[in-house]
């Protein structure tokens, strides 16, 4: 787990959004979504990519990883559900709030996963 680079991708997305002149509330929502997606890749998967596409009236963020996948997506979406190991919890993560927060801040959210293969999350944020 590469914790020392955690947040780099989210920071970069924030910076680009600010340079594009996106509204502060959208930037904030996008920051939360991308940071949580980034962390989930770091904590739960082996490796992955975060991609953001800025359009005039919306923003798309997609996270794709190779990893164990999520066996029960509905369960994973519930507040407080987490399989994070204890040492991750000690660092203040693993409260099972990531996916619920991503959902709260997205206008469209798609989660697909194949056990043993990986996970794909797509989030669309309208301006």
């Amino acid at each position, binding site marked *: 787990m590469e914790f020392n680079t955690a*947040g780099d991708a*989210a*920071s970069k997305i*924030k910076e*680009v959004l*600010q*340079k*594009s*002149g*996106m509204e*502060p*509330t959208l*930037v*904030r929502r996008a*920051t*939360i979504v991308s*940071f949580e997606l980034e962390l989930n890749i770091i904590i739960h998967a082996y490796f992955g990519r975060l991609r953001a596409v*800025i359009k*005039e009236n919306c923003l798309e963020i997609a996270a794709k990883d190779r990893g164990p996948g999520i066996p029960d997506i509905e369960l994973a979406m519930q507040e407080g559900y987490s399989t994070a190991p204890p040492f991750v919890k000690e660092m*203040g993560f693993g409260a099972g709030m990531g996916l619920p*927060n991503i959902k709260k801040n997205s206008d469209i959210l798609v989660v697909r996963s194949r056990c043993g293969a990986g996970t794909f999350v797509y989030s669309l944020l309208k301006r």
Partner: protein
Amino acid sequence: MGAYYHSVRLLEEKCKGCTNCIKRCPTEAIRVRQGKAVIIEERCVDCGECIRVCPNHAKVAVADDLTVLKSFPKNIALPAPALLGQFGRSTDEAHILGALLELGFDDVVEVAVAADMVSEVISQYLQSGKGPRPAISSACPAVVRLMQVRFPSLLDNIVPFEPPMEIAARLARESFGFGEVGVHFITPCPAKITAVKQPVSYKGPLLLDGAIPISAIYGEMMKRLNSARPFTPRATSRGIGWGRSGGEGLAIQGSSVLSVDGIHNVIAVLEEVERGRLSGVDYIEAQACTGGCVGGCLTVQNPFVGRTILKHKASEASGRKALLSSEALADMYRTSFFDMSVKITPRPVMRLDTDIKVALAKVNQMEQVAKELPGLDCGACGSPNCKALAEDIVQGRASELDCIFKLREKVQGLAEAMVEVARQLPPPVASRAETEKGERRDG
């Protein structure tokens, strides 16, 4: 001067065009162009980092001095709590405040007294559960302006009360009125000077007439400390503590407080808040200077020494009774006495264009340009890093050849082209000497 007032300025004749300040600036507001630093006005938050870091003392704070007292028949001094941390441990508060009177002030309103009140008001506000959490202190104007530029989505988290300096000014105006009376802040920093001249959360006639640096009067105060007529201090330890990091946190009661100092540390904490990852914190005390206001770049004492002295001064004042009871303050809290009169609005100066389509195109262009740059962030081009140069190029403020590596490539390319051209030249015509030699041999 443009739309923004700034206390922080450049002394061109002293600037050597080095890269110290451009690298340190938290909002990337400085460039070196034609061998001199240039401050981008819209971005500067007057934090004073560049003043601290400049080895040539080319960055200065423009401020008032004691001559401003001549403009008014009567003058009131509003000393920042940090002033008390500037003198020796044994120098008592009464003599420090008294020395201000010796300098020509007619009265003193301690900002620490206002801080006493604000502490109580914020404590009550936090207990009322109003407003988004974590609430963020409004005390450091450099932090507030940093947020306008870099963290606009967190502006609503700032407590809706004026900081102690402004409250002290309101108290002074209530007692002494406007017009014939000059009210002057004794400041630890340029950020507060800018706040005096151009407040962000207040509209109306300016409440303060001057801002005089602690460093500008320190020497004169030292001379008068012993002979000064003591002035009875009225602030309690709660308010005095605001002059150092952690002190404000102690003063806010009944809530969990995070204290952070140093502008780059403040940025790191605000990033956490923005990501929604900071839990269990009700209030953030954030100060741009290391050590808090005792570390302001217009103070004299070493910040860490100043902190210890101020702690001591606060403990000496612990027996004092606050000027206003918490009941009286609760009544004032219900009026608008402590409130900011206008909302703090974002300063969207990071965007590349006001037209989002154009801005997006520029972001793409910037990424392309950045890919071609070496990524060494050396600063020799005059921009703080390669990405900033890419932005400057896209904005038409710089060219790719400002990058010394790009320039070298170009020169190398040109040199190679020259050699190539030289190789293709027709063979030289034999010189006359050689022709003559040849003729002799023939003959």
